[in-house]
């Protein structure tokens, strides 16, 4: 018997036509891939993290390849929310796919203000609150590693917008379930994890750290087992949808996260290497569901 599986994600306020999203920081503002990748096939696009004012990011070198991984310290370079809305959003929101805007700030007030601005703009389907970037002193991991601060940011953003709210968590914590529960109680509609793992690399010839910023965030297949474990834990700790991120290179990686209970997945570093991979991942998930006789995506979790 041949089935046509339903891949639509219908969990709470998060409505996606399928569970494959492009992760923030690895797909620009989405429009960079327009005409090359059939973006309308995807469940959604999470754009590069935006701040109130433009940011120049960290000095180079910003990248280092490591075994099965990539260390980066981009430092949240972005055009700022105003230019995103005027220059990038019109083309992006014209696409038939969910537009999820990742936001970051130095203070609770920054996050709240950003959410308030985006709440007034048409063409945005959800906000992803980045409390987990390891590459800047403020505006990132500081909020993501403390349950009270994570909760405070989430509550402030919740007040400022009625858009679906995803909070992106850092893996650089002792107990992911504490933070997951804290943001759930503060009003998050969903959580996404993991952001990058804090790491570094040293140039033994130059006798100094490779990255100008010393530390960077590790992504890529090297981090997948850690990400999967944390997603598994988070799924069992909260009652809101969890979006799995971390080292997904192919459909079988994505399926591991979906079987662990993730409602959707984000493809990040893999897009940098193979920009078409997200569409192939989606097809692979569909194929798996057909082969195993699972007719609805909600039937995947084990």
């Amino acid at each position, binding site marked *: 018997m041949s089935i046509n599986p339903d891949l639509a994600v219908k969990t709470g306020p998060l409505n996606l036509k399928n569970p494959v999203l492009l992760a923030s*920081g*690895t*797909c*620009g503002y989405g429009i*960079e*891939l*327009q*005409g*090359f990748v059939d973006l309308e096939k995807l469940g959604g696009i999470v754009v*590069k993290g935006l701040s109130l004012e*433009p*940011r*120049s*990011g960290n*000095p*180079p*070198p*910003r*990248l*280092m*390849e490591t*075994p*099965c*991984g*990539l260390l*980066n310290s*981009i430092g949240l*370079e*972005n*055009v700022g929310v105003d230019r995103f809305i005027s220059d990038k959003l019109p083309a992006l929101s014209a696409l038939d796919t969910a537009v999820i805007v990742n936001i970051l700030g130095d203070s609770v007030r920054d996050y709240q203000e950003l959410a308030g601005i985006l709440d007034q703009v048409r063409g945005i389907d959800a906000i992803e609150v980045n409390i987990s970037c390891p590459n800047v002193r403020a505006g990132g991991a500081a909020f993501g590693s403390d349950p009270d601060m994570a909760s405070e940011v989430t509550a402030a953003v919740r007040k400022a917008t009625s858009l679906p709210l995803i909070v992106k968590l850092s893996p650089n914590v002792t107990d992911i379930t504490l933070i997951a529960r804290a943001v759930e109680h503060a009003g998050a509609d969903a959580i996404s994890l993991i952001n990058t793992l804090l790491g570094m690399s040293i140039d033994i010839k*130059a006798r100094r750290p490779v990255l100008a910023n010393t530390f960077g965030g590790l992504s*890529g*297949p090297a981090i997948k087992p850690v990400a999967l474990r944390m997603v598994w834990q988070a799924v069992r700790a909260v009652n809101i949808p969890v979006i799995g991120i971390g080292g997904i*290179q192919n459909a079988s990686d994505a399926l591991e996260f979906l079987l662990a209970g993730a409602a959707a997945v984000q493809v990040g*570093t893999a*897009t*940098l*290497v*193979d*920009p*078409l991979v997200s569409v192939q991942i989606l097809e692979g998930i569909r194929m798996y569901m057909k082969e195993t006789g699972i007719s609805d995506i909600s039937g995947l979790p084990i």
Partner: protein
Amino acid sequence: MKYLDVRGLVVAHGQVGPGTHILGIRAPEIRKGAKPGQFCMIDLKPPGAIDPLLRRPLSIHRVGPKGLLIFMYKVVGRGTALLSQLSPGGSLRILGPLGNGFRIDQSRPGLLIGGGIGTAPLVFLSEAWPKDVEQVAIIGGRTRADIEYAARCLEDTPSRVHLATDDGSLGHKGPVTDLMSRAMEMFEGRSPVVYSCGPGPMLKAVARMAADFNLECQVSLEARMACGMGLCLGCAVPGSRGDDSADSGYLHVCREGPVFRADQVSWEDYPCP
């Protein structure tokens, strides 16, 4: 988007100098749109493998008939060492053509200045050069073996070629900038446009001298790169203050480059390892 991601057949691969190789890939779809100064991202892994994770950016060294793209690269790390072991007959995923390329000014003579492996894209530039426009090339390297092959490629073009090595084993003993000031006399008062590619310290010196002579100077830069498509913003180089194209203070080699006007770059902050 004018670039494509295809699987190309490796039709030639060989060593042309110490640690220096040329790689010929048949990729007609990419060859068709390729301009001098553009680059491709080449996946070194066999299908299904995940390491080394990233593709490598290689500038287009020459093009040939039947969709041939030729790259010249130096073995500098794990990725290029792996690449150097690939035999003809195999295939590689190749994404391109990427970046802006050189902007040839047909109204003025060209002064092409290459250093070491940085000569690679200048050979394509020289071969694609308009017939009725004068061109002079200066090639420099540490020693004879570094530049012998590139110099031979250029001698087959209409360019007048001048050579320099640090150790004097081929051509002038000294930096390319020595020859640059001499070459200025050959243009008899007409201002050439400088097109340059090479190591950071050389580009810095060339840019300074071009500014002294009040010449337009285009430099092709390189940086560690992950995507080549402007997605990750990893390949940042410091932009000069007041330059609009560096909207964040940084230029991105893959997105706004790899070819920049020398005055777009903040040379005092430019990393020269």
